[in-house]
């Protein structure tokens, strides 16, 4: 059986990729929770994060040798923070410029979706125009190597860093959403925005904050993804759709569902590589998406942000 042979070798990259999908999926699910709308342009938030990280790392590392020790750690943190901030800025502007006027006008959802698609097309082509259309590699911030092996599968430094950073961010998000006043606001708007506004929640501000949080995670994911593969003006498209599939798989509007769905999708996608040629990998996510929509449209953990968080 093809599965058992290389299972572990494919599981480790699968978990790595899954954590990245989860980070992006959270952005979709948060916005969906408060606005009931797919933020198609979220993939461009991801792309922005990648480019921001690329520029910061190029400025920090320069053409010198690979940094090590405390230097690597601080560079890595600088990259993550900077890309997260830029992702958040783009997400915030997107909400301000594109979505808020529509919301004030009570536009039908078709209009939102078309705006989001247009914004996405505009942003990634603008990036392509400004920063070139070739793939760019983020300079090495640490020496990659094998740390240990699990059942014959190698675990690399890079994978540990990505998983560690992603898990830390997800834990932080979970705490913010469940324990803080800000999170309570988000949950309240997700549950019933009209009642929330009657209770004194400033809906517009909460929606802005939701976009910013999603943008922080998405931007950081873009940087991590950039260190894993490369940075490219169209890098957001496929991970974006896949992360959306992950969000639906976990139950759209449900944060823990998005985490679970992202992880599962990453693993399924990677492990299925042992059974089929890698050219067809991109199909897996869509097949999963269509199957979920057909048989369990509410996803694994159910839909509502307010109820499930």
């Amino acid at each position, binding site marked *: 059986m093809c599965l058992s042979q290389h299972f572990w070798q494919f599981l480790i990259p699968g978990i790595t990729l899954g954590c990245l999908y989860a980070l992006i999926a959270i952005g979709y699910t948060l916005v969906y929770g408060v606005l009931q709308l797919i933020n198609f342009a979220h993939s461009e938030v991801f792309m922005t994060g990648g480019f921001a990280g690329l520029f910061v790392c190029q400025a920090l590392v320069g053409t010198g040798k690979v940094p090590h020790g405390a230097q690597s750690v601080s560079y890595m943190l600088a990259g993550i923070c900077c890309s997260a901030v830029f992702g958040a800025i783009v997400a915030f502007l997107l909400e301000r410029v594109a979505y808020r006027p529509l919301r004030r006008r009570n536009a039908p*959802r078709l209009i939102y979706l*078309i705006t989001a698609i247009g914004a996405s097309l505009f942003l990634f082509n603008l990036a392509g125009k400004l920063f070139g259309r070739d793939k760019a590699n983020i300079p090495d911030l640490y020496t990659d190597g094998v740390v240990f092996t699990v059942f014959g599968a190698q675990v690399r430094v890079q994978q540990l860093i990505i998983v560690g950073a992603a898990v830390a961010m997800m834990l932080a998000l979970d705490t913010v959403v469940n324990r803080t006043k800000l999170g309570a606001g988000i949950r309240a708007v997700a549950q019933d925005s009209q009642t929330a506004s009657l209770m004194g929640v400033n*809906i517009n501000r909460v929606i802005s904050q939701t976009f910013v949080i999603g943008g922080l995670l998405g931007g950081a994911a873009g940087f991590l993804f950039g260190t894993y593969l490369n940075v490219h003006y169209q890098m957001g498209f496929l991970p974006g759709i896949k992360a959306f599939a992950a969000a639906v798989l976990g139950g759209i509007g449900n944060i823990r569902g998005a985490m679970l769905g992202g992880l599962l999708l990453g693993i399924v996608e990677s492990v299925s590589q042992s059974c089929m040629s890698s050219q067809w990998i991109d199909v897996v996510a869509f097949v999963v998406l269509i199957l979920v929509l057909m048989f369990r449209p509410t996803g694994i953990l159910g839909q509502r942000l307010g109820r499930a968080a």
Partner: protein
Amino acid sequence: MSQIGELPARVRRSRSVDPRLVRLFGWLVLGALLRLMTVTTEGTSTDHLLVIDEAFKSPALIAWLVAAVAVWAVTELWRARRIGAAVTVHTAGVRKQWSTIADRDLSRKLSLLAVVAAAIVIPQFLSEFYQRVLVDQVAVFVLLAVGLNVVVGWAGLLDLGYIAFFAIGAYTCAYFTGSLPVTPPFVLNPFVILPIAVIVCLAAGLLLGAPTLRLRGDYLAIVTLGFHEIVVLFLVNKNNWTGGNQGVSKTVPHFSINLFGIHYQWTLASLPYWYLFIGMLAIVVFLFARLEHSKVGRSWTAIREDEVAAAANGVPTVRYKLMAFAIGASTSGLAGVLYASRLGYINPASFPIVLSISVLSYVIFGGMGAIVGVIVGASLLTFLPAVLQEQNLVRQEDIPMWVGAVLVVMMLFRPQGLIPSRRRRRELRLASEGIADADAMSEAPEGRQR
């Protein structure tokens, strides 16, 4: 500030900035952005910030910023004058509508005649380049846009995999003319393939739509996006069937008539193809215009405006949505056959996802739901970039960026489009008052039990 919105009385923050300054800042940012968008060079991966450098160091930036300030000043003056003025009167338009129905009918027929005559005569006098633009860009995309209008404009669904059906149509044509590595059971004339491609795309549309149209409408958008990706992956990876990235192995033959003693063979010349295309377009437009006010068209309107009410009145909403989706798909397939035969060469790169969004932007720009608007929108937005590109004013790679910008700007300021359908405009206005819907994006009422 603007944050107050629909909230109950809330104290304004005392440190709020003068809104006029905020607007000035917005215009300045827009000016800088436009400067960035109009840079003629393109970035490279060796020096990522080259373009930004060039854009902001050239005097053109100052021109843009001055223009931004000027626009700001004019709008502020206008705003200041308007505050005192009375509310604009809405009723004038309504009175005018009813008085001239007879005149309008006549003038509509006359203008239709004029347009048809112009479409037949004018291309004769154009240069070969413009004839080619007319066929390869305008005609193909007008046909595509008219088809997508059924899905987006009339049924209120968002189909982002529209070009996938275009590809299916084109490859069906390539298959049955024996241009693919696999040999077909029989080789056919492209004319005969037209109905076959329509049926194939209809079936593909039904297959894709059946599971997804039951769900909320925004899922359809993403599933169709995925469908496009799958179709392209299939075309790329199934080398032995489709020729992979290299595309078709033999040239797809041109259309030809060989019937009742009439022999005619279309060639590389553009003009005959132009007449073939507008002939097809005329048929499609005639059929769709009949459809618009038929029972089916009225059902679409009902679904758009209030899906639950439509279902309660016995409109099988899922079936009609599926029908719109499949009709759109088959139109796209039809265009695909024409396209493949016209160009003779197709490969997976001929069908990028951006094309779907471009066609969407033509529909939106022209005015969704209005056939005339869609035709005008698609003609403008295909002809203009081709001309600008020819004059070296815009780079080809930048066109998707402008398409995206057009989409956003239209949605923000004129969602009903250039030449709106009156019904659609009314729906959008009612929706903003919270009375009705203007799309079919909610969950299908009969699909809800699942």
